[in-house]
């Protein structure tokens, strides 16, 4: 699969329903403390024609925030070595498809963490303060796929919202 390639799935739709969808769009930021916040601000603005409800926008925001936090924290761990993060978002009949590309360090073992739920039935001082990120991504997003392509990380996922929404 190519990073830049479009996934199929639009071919069976009529022109009318395609027109009602939000056109695919891109957002680009540079890694750093405020990268995720900045990208989410731009994404949510571009998604505003879909008039997502609070439940849907919260789900989308969480998934994207956790994915971007991961890129900033582990992909570009050295604050002196920032790099680009590019996000494509495509509105399809089965939800919002998000494609995140960065040129940071690869995922360990070439795959995403399992994202198991953190254990909360533990002693007070052993309460987890981290390890929630991938759990939230895998719980809230569908079709999470990671691929290292040359010097790029490509993370694809789908958030199953706005399926019947039309752009206003």
């Amino acid at each position, binding site marked *: 699969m190519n990073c830049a390639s479009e996934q199929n799935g639009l071919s069976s739709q009529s022109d009318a329903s395609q027109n009602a969808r939000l056109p695919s769009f891109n957002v680009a930021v540079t890694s750093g403390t405020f990268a995720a916040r900045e990208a989410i601000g731009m994404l949510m603005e571009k998604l505003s024609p879909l008039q997502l409800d609070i439940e849907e926008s919260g789900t989308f925001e969480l998934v994207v925030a956790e994915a971007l936090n991961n890129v900033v924290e582990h992909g570009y761990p050295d604050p002196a070595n920032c790099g680009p993060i590019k996000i494509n978002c495509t509105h399809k009949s089965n939800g919002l498809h998000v494609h995140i590309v960065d040129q940071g360090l690869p995922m360990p073992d070439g795959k995403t963490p399992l994202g198991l739920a953190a254990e909360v039935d533990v002693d007070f001082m052993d309460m987890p303060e981290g390890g929630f990120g991938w759990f939230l991504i895998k*719980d809230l997003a569908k079709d999470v796929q990671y691929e290292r392509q040359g010097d790029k990380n490509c993370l694809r996922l789908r958030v199953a919202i706005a399926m019947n929404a039309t752009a206003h």
Partner: protein
Amino acid sequence: MELSSRTENSFKIVSVQGSRIDAAVAIEFKDAMRAQSDGGPDTVILDLSEVEFIDSSGLGAIVAAMKHIGPDRTLALAGLTPTVDKVFRLTRMDSVFSLFSTLEGALDELRV
């Protein structure tokens, strides 16, 4: 990330003056909570009613704040907006904290 606090009915109420507790401010939040919650009443109520979004870093910072406050004192969370509530439910942290939908509700319930 600003926090303001007051003491009311023998509770320490710490209010977050910001709409996001995310990776960008998680450490700042943790330090500010530490400063606000040291000493004082046994029950600390964190008023999250202005917070619209929290990510896993923010959640971790709240857990760290709870640990800092210690097992002999209580950290209750009040005023959870929909997305904040979702994060607590999904991670099962709703079973660890006392959660209240409003600050008034928390004050009523926690009053001995």
